[in-house]
């Protein structure tokens, strides 16, 4: 019984490669990742929900941003307003995927990396904070923040 369940679980994983469990390969050019992760197409509306949710995107733990209803915003990182004007799509993507590639000392978490981490809590082990589709959604949303 248990083996059958485990097998079904494994099959489900295999059938859904873009799920949170996997990390998409990418190429860095300069300080950017020019190509979308896993060829996914981002959706600004979903991206807004991800960035605005402190449990999912975590962004507002550290950043202020254009979320009038969210009173508990952070002041550790810069305001997200204008990020789409300051950075290109590819630059935003690299900063979300792994900010340490730009600033090795940064406090900003690597949202799409599972290697090189230590003592990750059980529930989160082997999974990136955001999957490829979520990264693309967030990048697409950030590009709309031009002022």
């Amino acid at each position: 019984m248990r083996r059958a369940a485990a097998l079904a679980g494994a099959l489900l994983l295999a059938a859904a490669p873009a799920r949170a469990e996997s990390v998409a390969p990418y190429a860095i050019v300069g300080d950017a990742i020019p190509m979308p992760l896993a060829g996914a197409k981002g959706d600004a509306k979903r991206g807004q929900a991800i960035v605005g949710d402190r449990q999912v995107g975590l962004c507002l733990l550290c950043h202020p941003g254009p979320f009038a209803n969210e009173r508990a915003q952070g002041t550790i990182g810069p305001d997200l307003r204008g990020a789409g004007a300051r950075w290109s799509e590819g630059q935003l993507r690299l900063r979300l995927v792994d900010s340490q590639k730009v600033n090795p000392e940064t406090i900003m978490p690597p949202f799409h990396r599972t290697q090189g981490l230590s003592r990750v809590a059980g529930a989160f082990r082997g999974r990136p904070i955001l999957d490829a589709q979520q990264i693309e959604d967030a990048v697409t949303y950030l590009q709309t923040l031009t002022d």
Partner: protein
Amino acid sequence: MTVLGSRILAGLFGVALAPLAELRAGEIPFAELRSGSELMSPDTRAMQDADSANPGMLWVIEGEALWNAKAGAANLACADCHGAAELAMRGVAARHPAFDAKRNQAVNLAGSIEWCRVERQKAPALTAEGPEALALEAYVARQSRGLSIASTDAALRPLIESGRELYLRRQGQLDLSCAHCHTENWGRKLAGLALSQGHPNGYPLYRLEWQSFGSLERRLRNCLTGMRAEPYPAGASEYLALEAYLKWRAHGMPMESPAVRP
């Protein structure tokens, strides 16, 4: 820091923990140390300062009763050997973790109390972080309120160094170190809440969010969970090492236990 201040500190540490500069590299200068209580609302601050409003005093009162109660096969109270806690325990919390030369190991305050209970009272160990252990720790720590943290024992140096290493190490899914929040970003807001410098001077304390009294170890487990890191097992040596480093880092700060925190 004043020249005099740094001379006094150099005098204190010169022998014990040289080279001081190396161990404190990148850390908050002594003159800029700020207690977590300085970031609290006036209401919470007032609650901490007035014994009649401070919920932690319930644990202190319970601890006083335990201090005077005979226990174990030796049928001795803490007071039978130590006398009045106000004298015997004055400053004891401020200098823990301490190095116990007889056992050749470092102990925190809970560990020192536990040793007396088991070896000297011949009583069964109290549940770690249980209500009675916390009450005794609260009562003993209370006798250091207002006294400066004194982390000057050279024998603790290796423990302090390993605690520093843990403090600076990135951990968990968020890949953060303690220093990222408490050394580099204190005073800034994490989700609307001002980050403190992460000092141990108020523990054990009453936390409104817990609606309960708790240990430093419990606070550290909360921080590790926030980093999405696996908390160390209860009572693990990593907590003692972190505590020793935090106390050293906070050297000179007044003790506030039983403090109140949001």
